């Protein structure tokens, strides 16, 4: 069964994207990526630690993976744009995961600043995936601004709470033409399967794999789950019925615009 995910000009056999943070031993990252067949890997950009002898994180990532740099640490659009430009200067291509987080408690993203940064960075040639609070209207605006995909959160970053945003993400999947990739908060392979059964195009998992007592086996488990969920979606359509359309509670007449009923 041929089932290729396309984002911008690239094709992906694997619908599991993997983040590289929080691994107690970075040397395992290469085995994790190989074990799950992941083709898209995220890294972050930080001030260099002069005292550390840490090797380059890229040394652990197979060369055929796409490296997507996140803009973590950015609190507004200008900071995200600055990080993106620095990231591109590192010479790893044009893929950027825009992430604008002014909230330190729940690490929830600022959708308005994310949209501002997207408009600028797309015009500069970045292939941009936008981490966001699930919201159809902003997602449409991000897609219109040229985002290659949107990445609604499943739950707060690193919380492992699972796919808590299911209803809104389902509406996004139904209504958007760009890929929808659930990013953040997925705690177990079952959560990833639920995203895929719903019709999401991919998931991004970091903490649940990184802090597992066996990250390589955990990555395999997530890969199985993603494939299982995706296969079910293809065979039988969504596991959930389409969300019920809204039914207005205020009158649908007498609006302050021309062409409608009094």
């Amino acid at each position: 069964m041929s089932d290729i995910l396309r984002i911008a000009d690239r094709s992906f056999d694997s619908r599991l994207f993997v983040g590289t943070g929080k691994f107690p031993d970075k040397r395992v990252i290469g085995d994790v990526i190989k074990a799950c067949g992941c083709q898209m890997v995220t890294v972050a950009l930080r001030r260099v630690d002069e005292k550390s002898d840490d090797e380059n994180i890229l040394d652990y990532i197979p060369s055929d993976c796409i490296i997507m740099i996140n803009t973590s640490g950015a609190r507004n659009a200008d900071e995200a744009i600055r990080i993106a430009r620095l990231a591109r200067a590192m010479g790893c291509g044009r893929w950027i995961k825009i992430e604008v987080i002014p909230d330190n408690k729940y690490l929830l993203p600022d959708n308005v600043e994310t949209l501002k940064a997207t408009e600028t960075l797309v015009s500069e040639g970045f292939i941009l995936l936008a981490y966001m609070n699930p919201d159809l209207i902003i997602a449409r605006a991000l897609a219109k601004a040229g985002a290659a995909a949107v990445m609604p959160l499943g739950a707060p970053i690193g919380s492992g709470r699972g796919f808590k945003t299911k209803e809104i993400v389902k509406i996004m999947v139904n209504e958007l033409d760009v890929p929808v990739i659930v990013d953040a908060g997925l705690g177990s392979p079952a959560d990833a399967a639920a995203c895929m059964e719903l019709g999401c195009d991919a998931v991004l998992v970091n903490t649940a794999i990184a802090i597992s007592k066996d990250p390589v086996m955990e990555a395999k488990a997530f890969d199985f789950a993603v494939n299982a969920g995706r296969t079910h979606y293809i065979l039988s359509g969504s596991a959930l019925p389409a969300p019920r359309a809204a039914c207005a509670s205020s009158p649908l007449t007498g609006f302050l615009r021309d062409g409608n009923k009094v």
Partner: protein
Amino acid sequence: MRIKINGRFQDIKDISDLQELIRIKGLSGKAIVIEHNHNIIPKDKWNEVMLEEGDTVEIVSFVGGG
């Protein structure tokens, strides 16, 4: 000469350009990008950027992240 490196003022002696700063810091050969007074400086220009009192230098690299 005092310059701000990664958010911290440091006294730098006998260093004239970015290339030397990177060498003295032991960062030669590492995968880094440098921003000098908010301008990204390509590696082949490091030896052309003269440091002056009060300059701001950011030196960044990749780390694990989600």
